[in-house]
């Protein structure tokens, strides 16, 4: 376990040494502050529009951070050949995967905390009230979403040869699931024959990331909190998928030759 946390620590240090997070945070903050200073029809209390834009920017930023951070972990170790002394430590391949995942996810959660703290401050100053429990639930489901994405990208990094193709494919897959994933059952219902069955199978097989994303609507539109049991079930679902993806990553990685 120590090896896993040691590896995770290195990944977290890498995040704050790189400029990606700072650039994305400053961009999000600037856009939000400019929008926050706008007044529509001399009406001071408008806040949902600001919430929507700020939260959307946070989702985009964290998705970019998660995918780009996770995608370069294993290829970078292979290219710089640091993976050989790392595995000779001795660190097992499973520990390497677990360490990289833990590091990437914790780094994303730290970034997410900063983003949500800023979001809370901005919204609090506009609404003159602290965000409710749905705000915390939205944060938690966002973190669960990032765990699934990081695991998916790590799997991609041992399957695809090029880092760029992994990043592109993962972006398309995640965005595709977010916007179409939840509706595939209806698409399948309108199809006949084997095609419909295949689409239905895909619907059941994909991780339903849109559940986590959809919560942003509840946050923006000031709906009440989600039932805690539903939150626990969504967390369990996310944990199971993350475990499955990490298991697949390890299965592929343990048989992989590490020389380029």
């Amino acid at each position, binding site marked *: 376990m120590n090896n896993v946390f040691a590896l995770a620590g290195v990944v977290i240090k890498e995040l704050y040494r790189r400029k990606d997070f700072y650039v994305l945070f400053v961009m999000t903050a600037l856009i939000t502050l400019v929008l926050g200073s706008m007044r529509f*029809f001399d*009406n001071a209390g408008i806040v949902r529009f600001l919430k929507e834009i700020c939260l959307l920017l946070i989702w985009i930023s964290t998705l970019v951070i998660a995918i780009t951070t996770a995608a370069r972990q294993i290829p970078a170790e292979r290219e710089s050949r640091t993976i050989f002394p790392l595995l000779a430590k001795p660190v097992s391949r499973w520990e390497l995967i677990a360490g990289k995942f833990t590091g990437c996810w914790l780094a994303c959660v730290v970034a997410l905390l900063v983003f949500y703290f800023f979001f809370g401050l901005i919204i609090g100053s506009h609404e003159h009230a602290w965000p409710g429990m749905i705000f915390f639930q939205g944060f938690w489901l966002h973190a669960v979403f990032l765990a699934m994405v990081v695991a998916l990208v790590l799997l991609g990094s041992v399957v695809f040869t090029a880092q760029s193709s992994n990043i592109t494919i993962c972006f398309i897959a995640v965005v595709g699931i977010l916007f179409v994933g939840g*509706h595939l059952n*209806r698409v399948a219902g309108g199809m006949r024959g084997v095609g419909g069955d295949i689409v239905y199978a895909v619907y059941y097989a994909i991780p339903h990331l849109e559940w986590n994303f959809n*919560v942003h609507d*509840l946050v923006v*539109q000031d709906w009440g909190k989600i039932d805690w049991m539903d939150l626990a*079930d969504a967390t369990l679902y996310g944990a199971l998928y993350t475990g499955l993806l990490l298991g697949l990553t390890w299965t592929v990685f343990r048989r992989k030759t590490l020389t380029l």
Partner: protein
Amino acid sequence: MIRLVLTLLFAGCFTLATVLEPRMDKLRPQTDEDTGFMATLMGESRRLFANQFFVEADVYFHSGYYPTIFDKPEDEANLDVNSKEEAETHPPAPASGRRHEADEGGGFLGPPRDWIERFGRHFFPTEHTHLAGDKVREILPWLRLSADMDPHRIQTYLTASYWLRGTLGQPDEAEKFLREGLHANPDSFEIYLELGYVYLFNKKNPHLARSEFDLALQVWEKQDAAGLKPPPKARVEILDGMVRADEDQNDLKQLLVDLEALKAVSPNQEAIEKTILETRAKLATPAPGRPE
């Protein structure tokens, strides 16, 4: 040497640009429209965004409970955020800022098809509500953006004005926005009519309201004469506005004239006939205190 060549090349490019720019400008289609930053940047495609932003206002009006492209689409002309009949009144807004609405036919979601869909419904709004009271202001940014994207989209001005002057109690802002709309659409009888409502119902100035209704009627008749077929219902609404303004001004002679005009086009002729008779009776009765 290389620096000299680069400087000459830059000077050549700059000179050529100053020569070509006026010629290219002549090639562009010449229109009377304001060519703002968004218009230059996005061209005609911004109109698509204008429609999308208007729909987004309706999404906010429903607090996110809204069909996706995979559900049965809403008819844009019948969006709930659009202005309603003038006579419609609402009970006081609930503390949540949301008023529950009945869903005809169980709503667009229908029963869930499988456990994934059933479970997924815990994570997005599934209740049909409308924003109420001050919370309606949340739709305003989208209407502003919609008007910026397409200044010729008249419905945007009408909807924004309806909520501004009514629920939000900001008739000055409504008037300002309608004037802006009128600047972009000088031939819109709808905007003149809405301006008339602002003066009549909110600013309690029937004289100004009457002028706006007059202008609305002139534009309507001009369009009718040109064969543009403006909706007959709009004429009824304009004449009805004129009648109300006359009543508020207590201008009985003008009221009689307007009532006759309204009777000719209104589907409710019996009630108008009754009002005409009452007005004639009032006119025949000498004012108290006046010598015979």
